[in-house]
């Protein structure tokens, strides 16, 4: 009934089966970020995450339409929101560190559907960037317990974002304060 890791697995599997039945997409790889990546990896508990799936990139991109069509069919069958699998998070792709895709790790394969997720240090870095405006992300960081090395990596990521920012008003000081707060409590 709920969308815990097992149910999420089922929803993705059935999406893969529908894609296979259509037979014209070839292999499609989805890169997951956010709560579903945390849930499927065991980094976050079920009470700290929701089961909607944030896809930051699909490869090949032209297969995305077929994926969301299959996911919508599965939504009907399992009583899920029609957009349980979506790519709205793409607008925040800039939060991810360079090279995130190469560091991503495979989670499961369901027929033609390969499900990958960002790795732990990239997950943490993205959470730090968003935590100043999303208190739940700071709570997630406390639950994930980043190591000193992971926070150093995030610090470098913030430095890169600052260097590349075209907006003179954009500041990452709050994100740095998040890192310092984490160093103080972990």
């Amino acid at each position: 009934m709920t969308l815990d890791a097992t149910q999420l697995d089922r929803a993705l599997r059935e999406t893969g089966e529908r894609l296979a039945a259509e037979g014209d997409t070839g292999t499609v790889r989805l890169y997951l970020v956010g709560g579903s990546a945390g849930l499927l990896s065991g980094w976050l508990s079920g009470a700290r995450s929701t089961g909607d799936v944030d896809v930051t990139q699909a490869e090949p991109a032209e297969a995305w339409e077929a994926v969301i069509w299959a996911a919508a069919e599965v939504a009907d069958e399992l009583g899920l929101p029609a957009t349980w699998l979506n790519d709205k998070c793409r607008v925040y792709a800039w939060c991810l560190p360079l090279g995130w895709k190469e560091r991503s790790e495979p989670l499961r394969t369901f027929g033609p559907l390969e499900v990958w997720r960002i790795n732990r240090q990239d997950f943490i870095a993205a959470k730090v960037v968003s935590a100043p405006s999303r208190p739940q992300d700071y709570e997630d960081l406390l639950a994930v317990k980043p190591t000193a090395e992971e926070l150093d990596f995030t610090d470098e990521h913030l430095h890169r974002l600052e260097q590349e920012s075209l907006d003179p008003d954009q500041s990452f000081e709050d994100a740095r304060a998040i890192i310092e707060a984490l160093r103080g409590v972990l």
Partner: protein
Amino acid sequence: MNRKANDNVERDWARVGVLFGCEPSRETPDLERLLIDTARKCPDNARLLPLAVTWLVEYGQFVARHRLKRLVQTELEPEPQAILGLLIEEAVRHGATRELLIVSEECHPLSPAVPLSRVQRDQTSLAHISERRASDVSQKCGVWTPPVEPKPDAVRSVTWLLDHNTEYRERVIRKGDLRVSIIETLRRDVPGHWVASELALSRISGATRAAVRKALEALRLEGVVCVGTEVINDRDHPVSLTEGLTAAR
């Protein structure tokens, strides 16, 4: 709030269609008490606020608002009162029924204000971030948090909700009006599912006596309540739920 209730909040939300990744409760939750407990738990799980707001935007008419108002007045501590006020105002701002505002009007702001999230309270730098980024409505309520972004991708459809919580059907048919508050009050809040008089019901359902009388008449015609013919004293007639409707279903 006891520990059991505290642990059940996310499970109860899962039961009514929020895609929390935890096992849902076995029984349909008492919706008004779920909102009360959610307000109490929001400081420890910041994800609750946007999800409860999203649910209320979709399903605010399921809420027995008079009963919720009375629970706020009689049971809810100052800090969760302010949080519930924020929750409701954010929900209305995003499209929930404005009739819920009769509840938020009873929710007093917290003073001095604090960050909503408990983990932001202990460190000065985080508390400053919280204050700087607080939405106008959260500042008004005295519990700082950024503007709420609803998350419709994480709430199931009304069909699913009613299939798994059949007793909510009567809530939405009556659009959460005073009749729902009377039914839920008799079902959940009074021993033996009866009260001694219309006046007593008026006190505990949070509505005026005239409004209660009108709603009772409608419920009597619907066959949902019985108004006793025997008077308890010179003027009072007992009111009870019709047999068979007393259990939360």
